[in-house]
């Protein structure tokens, strides 16, 4: 009998050994997204979106009367992230759990000061996944306070990270990717650029619920200055902030956040944003453009615009060494296109070739313009050209590595050649005729 019971007893001992760390699910305060910012110099302002699981209940009796509150946004300032979390825990009746967080947002001021010390916490904390999306917000505190289409702010941000890149003007970055680029020679990290508005302690309502958040009862006293304008912050009237305007009243929603482009870092410091076509010019060159829409003038003197869908794009980079100086980079880009719309009167014998040439010219101009901007103004090798030199010519790289970003990268000559192929025309073939 003892011989039979012993294995069971040992199995029980092994599986119960972790009971010290047991926290029941209903005792967890599940964090959906994390905002990090600097308001007081030398301190970190941590904002947490804490999910209300009751609002997400489906298929049960609870679903009939879902809670109108989908999440709470709590924030605290301290000397470090763990200290701020401890302060938030002091007023949270559940155990904070970051294992389900899917987004980390750096505020612009913090990002410009440098995020290395805070990345250390993010990398060390085992429960925080390395797959979390990293964003940089142009405001001083940009945690999402209003879900859009989906039930939670963090789900909205996660959904945006997955689907907004189809615009061809932004790209998601994970914590793993950011840390990897930070550690490698000759390449600098980027994140998604999000636009947002001030963060307060707020109750986040489900879509469709009253979103007004000005009741003193649901706001903590705000001793922190978070409303002043900072350099690089999008003004309220900026077209990129249109989604903030709700319905016919044009009433701004508080704290709406979405993706607008790419934030470029030099080391752990933010140095600038690339938005709209600028972001696309960068994404072309690094081979991260998944989809995009190009608009070129209709060929053959026809008035109007032709829209072309980019179905895929590939980039081949080569390090060309001539003589003993700084190598040149050869960037060959191939884009496959699909005709998505054309003006009604368009009819040209050489339509295909002209459109391909027009698209290639547009892409080439975009790539060159952004390259010039990054080399001249931002001075940060977010393309990884230095890394290419290091991989292909390690001895040559040693000569230039010390002041690569400031001195050599701006001088780097990049030969851009673009080939565009118009392979498809959608469901209708109206190639050369009216």
């Amino acid at each position, binding site marked *: 009998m003892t011989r039979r019971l*012993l*294995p069971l007893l*040992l*199995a029980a*001992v*092994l599986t119960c*050994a*972790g*009971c*010290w*760390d047991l926290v029941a699910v209903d005792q967890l305060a599940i964090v959906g997204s994390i905002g990090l910012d600097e308001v007081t110099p030398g301190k970190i302002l941590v904002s947490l979106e804490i999910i209300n699981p009751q609002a997400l209940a489906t298929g049960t009796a609870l679903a009939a009367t879902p809670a109108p509150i989908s999440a709470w946004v709590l924030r605290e300032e301290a000397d470090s992230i763990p200290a701020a979390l401890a302060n938030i825990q002091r007023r949270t009746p559940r155990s904070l759990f970051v*294992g*389900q967080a*899917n987004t980390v947002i750096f505020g612009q001021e913090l990002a410009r000061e440098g995020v290395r010390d805070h990345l250390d916490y993010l990398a060390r904390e*085992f429960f925080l*996944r*390395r*797959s979390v999306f990293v964003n940089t917000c142009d405001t001083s505190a940009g945690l999402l306070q209003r879900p859009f289409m989906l039930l939670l702010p963090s789900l909205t941000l*996660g959904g945006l990270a*997955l689907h907004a890149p189809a615009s061809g003007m932004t790209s998601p970055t*994970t*914590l*793993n*990717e950011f*840390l*990897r*680029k930070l*550690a*490698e020679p000759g390449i600098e990290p980027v994140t998604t650029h999000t636009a947002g508005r001030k963060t307060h302690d707020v109750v986040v309502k489900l879509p469709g619920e009253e979103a007004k958040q000005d009741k003193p009862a649901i706001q903590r006293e705000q001793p922190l200055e978070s409303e002043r304008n900072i350099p690089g912050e999008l003004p309220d009237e900026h077209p990129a902030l249109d989604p903030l305007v709700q319905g016919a009243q044009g009433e701004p929603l508080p704290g709406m956040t979405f993706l607008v482009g790419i934030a470029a870092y030099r080391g752990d410091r933010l140095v600038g944003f690339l938005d709209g076509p600028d972001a696309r010019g960068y994404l072309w060159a690094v081979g991260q453009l998944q989809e995009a829409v190009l608009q070129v003038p209709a060929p053959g003197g026809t008035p109007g615009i032709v829209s072309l869908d980019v179905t895929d794009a590939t980039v081949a980079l080569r390090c060309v060494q001539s003589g003993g100086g700084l190598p040149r980079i050869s960037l060959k880009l191939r884009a496959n296109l699909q005709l998505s719309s054309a003006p009604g009167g368009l009819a040209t014998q050489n339509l295909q070739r002209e459109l391909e040439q027009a698209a290639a010219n547009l892409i080439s101009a975009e790539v060159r313009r952004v390259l010039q901007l990054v080399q001249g103004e931002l001075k940060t090798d977010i393309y990884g050209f230095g*890394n*290419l030199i*290091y*991989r*292909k010519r*390690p001895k040559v790289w040693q000569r230039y590595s010390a002041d690569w970003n400031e001195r050599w990268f701006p001088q780097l000559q990049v030969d851009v050649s673009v080939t565009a192929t118009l392979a498809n025309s959608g469901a209708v073939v109206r190639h050369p005729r009216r």
Partner: protein
Amino acid sequence: MFLIIVLTRIAVMADGLPVVTVGSALQDAWLGALLATAASAALAALAATLAMRFPGKSLGVFARETLGRWLGLGVSLAVALVYFLLTLFELYQLTTLTKGTILPRTPAWVFTLSVLSVAVYGAYLGADAMGRAAEVLITIVFGAVVVGVCVLVAAPLPQSYSSLSPVLERGVWPVAEAAIIPALWFLVSGGTVLGLGKFTRPTQKLRGAVVGAVLASGMLLTLFAVISTLILGPSEARDQLAPMLSVARAINLPGILERSDLLLIVIWLLGAVFETTIFLLVAAIVSADALGLNVTQVVPILGAAAALVVVLYTPTVFDLRRAAQPTPTGLGGLFALGGVVALMLVVTALRGAGRRGRGGP
């Protein structure tokens, strides 16, 4: 024998990956893995050759026959002590990683003693029971490895093979340095043949099983080194406590697999508990045979001694990292264990002891 060695290596190599985390091979870690595999396969083949010359006997018996009563006893007990220390090291490593990740508040001794009690029970049941357990566990572990590779392919991770270049940028020494600790681990796994070889039938297949097991797990080690270098980047991978665990933390398939790291930890726990048991069993077999005792008498004594040590002393993660350096631990271990095997082979050959040729029945 093949399964026991493969199992002891796959699960643990999947996490600790010393070829990546120790030294400065960086993008050349995979070369270090290949070097470690080749070197340790040769050394493990020597150990298997030695065991094949004494079918049905462990080191505790044939060391006495070859080297004489007292020297043989000394060598046997020294080897048994090495495996006992490896048992402790494995326990500590298991506890440190578990505390550093999923169970930070659980007292170290609780987890350590739980694992140790299972290991003692497994060792008490003996080699046959562990062989049967290996047949079951290898299916789980291998299945998990296959699933893991599939998940890795499905996950949208930026993977660039350029991360593996430039090759040998820092020369050959960093690669050799990175290979030392994995080679030692492979050797001690292959070295289990000195204790467990006496149970293997037919004996003439022993060498093939041992070398095959080292090569198979070496290929997987190489694969793991490549994966962690590609996904984390060479520098970032080197700084991880457990690179493959960090790779798993970077994988998220929304709606399908939210956290693959917990799956990896479970697999790793299975393998690590199994390895601890095997090391304890080898220490018990060799020392019992050397002292003329029964293995079931020695296992509880070794278990009690291990329990006493782990309760009285718990090293930090930094202590363990310092202990597992290429010098002196790696090279010292390789020379000591490899030296014993080589010495025994030479003496056996000179004295004409044991069975010649391809081994016994």
